[in-house]
């Protein structure tokens, strides 16, 4: 197979992938003697030098607790921490920084809502509507909330391409529906859901909406004012930031009315043994010492992404997706799982007679890092009656050469096991 049978997309003038790659130290290494082709970005993205430097700077210079000290270090740490919150607010175009709650990850953000909002609002017989392509982190917290409250979990089905069947979705949104919780961009199928349309349907019945933007946040611009969900969550480590930091955007009036999630320091304004008063937003939802370094690192990562711009990133990733789709489709016996009308640069696939786990091991020895397994979305595997998939997920720093390396490595899999 000739490596360049498919035309290589012309590099866009505003986007220089070589220059972008040069800023990611982890991408410069060899694995098993081959240049690393990191194609597992849906699991986590690599970190640019500026983010690593921000962590280092914080620990070397500014390390102190936030919102508690009057000394110089605490003031610097607090300023940097709050500056990150403003950066995140601007990223998603929230009205106020009071609407940006820092959590540990997307999973904690969803659990926060399922607990604080769910236990408060869900009554027996109420319904929570999710889609059939959710990550476990947007399934399990709702199952638990339903078990606590007597509410019922409903699942909107998806079709063979990986699109939510909107007629079914519409049918499932009824006056019983109190929460609609759907993924913006699927980590397995790459599907970009029509969240605006879904939110409009939820509004007709007065349901509250949570959008899981874990995968969307690093591929596309998000405007929570235009989209108008009640909650939008994402996770720092997938947008080139550190692990241990996540974001919950919540509409201010709703966050204000909600009871707190965890109790402890920072989330109160006064405590006596008789009664405690809750702190204002967003601190009411940030009990205990946060991951200060990671929050600061996330702010730096968001600036990094913003400086490159989602227009340039989107164009590059769209070209990569088109190239990868064409090249992978030409691999004998390979079938893509997830061919939605609107999709991002996530390519799940299966190969006849070859188990994804064997594929993953063999391509790793060629320096190609892909994910294999159920991707924390077992119901998606069941939907397509497959035990697992192999998945290549592409980010702004990936190149057509790396896709070629994957295709060559897949050839090797067939050669070795076929």
């Amino acid at each position, binding site marked *: 197979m000739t490596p360049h049978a498919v035309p290589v997309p012309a590099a866009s003038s505003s986007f220089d992938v070589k220059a972008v790659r040069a800023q990611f130290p982890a991408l410069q290494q060899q694995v098993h003697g081959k240049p690393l082709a990191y194609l597992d970005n849906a699991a986590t993205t690599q970190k640019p030098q500026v983010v690593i430097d921000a962590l280092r700077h914080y620990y070397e210079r500014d390390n102190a607790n936030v919102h508690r000290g009057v000394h110089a270090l605490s003031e610097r740490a607090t300023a940097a921490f709050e500056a990150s919150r403003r950066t995140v607010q601007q990223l998603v175009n929230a009205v106020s920084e009071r609407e940006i709650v820092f959590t540990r990850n997307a999973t904690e953000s969803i659990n926060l809502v399922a607990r604080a909002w769910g236990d408060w609002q869900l009554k027996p017989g109420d319904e929570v509507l999710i889609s059939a392509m959710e990550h476990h982190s947007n399934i399990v917290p709702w199952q638990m909330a339903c078990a606590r409250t007597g509410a019922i979990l409903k699942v909107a089905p998806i079709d063979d391409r990986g699109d939510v069947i909107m007629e079914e979705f519409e049918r499932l949104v009824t006056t019983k529906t109190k929460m609609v919780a759907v993924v913006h961009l699927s980590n397995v199928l790459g599907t970009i859901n029509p969240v605006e349309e879904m939110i409009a349907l939820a509004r007709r019945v007065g349901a509250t909406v949570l959008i899981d933007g874990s995968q969307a946040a690093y591929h596309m611009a998000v405007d929570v004012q235009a989209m108008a969900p009640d909650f939008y969550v994402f996770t720092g480590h997938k947008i080139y930031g550190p692990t241990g930091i996540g974001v919950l955007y919540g509409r201010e009036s709703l966050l204000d009315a909600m009871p707190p999630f965890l109790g402890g320091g920072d989330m109160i304004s006064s405590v006596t043994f008789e009664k405690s008063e809750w702190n204002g937003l967003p601190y009411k939802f940030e009990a205990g010492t946060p991951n200060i370094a990671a929050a600061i690192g996330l702010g730096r990562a968001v600036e990094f992404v913003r400086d490159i711009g989602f227009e340039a990133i989107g164009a590059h990733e769209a070209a990569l997706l088109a190239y990868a789709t064409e090249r992978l489709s030409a691999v004998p016996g390979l079938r893509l799982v997830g061919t939605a009308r609107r999709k991002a640069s996530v390519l799940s696939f299966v190969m006849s007679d070859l*188990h*994804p*786990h*064997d594929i993953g*091991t*063999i391509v790793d*020895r060629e320096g190609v890092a892909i994910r*294999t*397994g*159920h991707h924390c979305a*077992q119901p998606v*595997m069941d939907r397509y009656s497959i*035990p*697992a998939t192999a998945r290549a997920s592409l980010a702004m720093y990936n190149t057509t050469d790396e896709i070629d390396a994957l295709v060559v490595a897949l050839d090797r899999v067939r050669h*070795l*096991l076929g």
Partner: protein
Amino acid sequence: MQDLHDLYQEVILDHNRRPRNFGPLPDATQSAKGHNPLCGDKLTLSLKVEGDRITDVMFEGSGCAISKSSASLMTDAIKGRTVDEATELFDRFHQMVTTPSDQPVDEAAVGKLAVLAGVREFPARVKCASLAWHTLKAALTKAPDPAKTE
């Protein structure tokens, strides 16, 4: 690339393509399900134990080349053995796959199963090789829940 060939040896590929003792066992006396949630591998192991002897064994399910061939090799190895012998083989197999890869394995102790020693170079795959064996243990002790490798 040598380590890949050590892992995917011809014997393993052969057992993967043509697994032995594959299918249902209608007169089984005990059985267990094994599941490796990491890769989705699932297998059902059925044993016919008469007295203290495993007189027949079959397995079914789906899995990667390593877990399938390991299950196939295991069924060959334990058929006709006593329960105690099978349990001892479990221990020896476990010993082999958990021996650091820079140390030699005692091939005589495991016989044909030694072809799976290459899995030690691939820590993420040791669980694939062990799944059938954990399921065997569960079947022999009639544990009610599916055996897990996690």
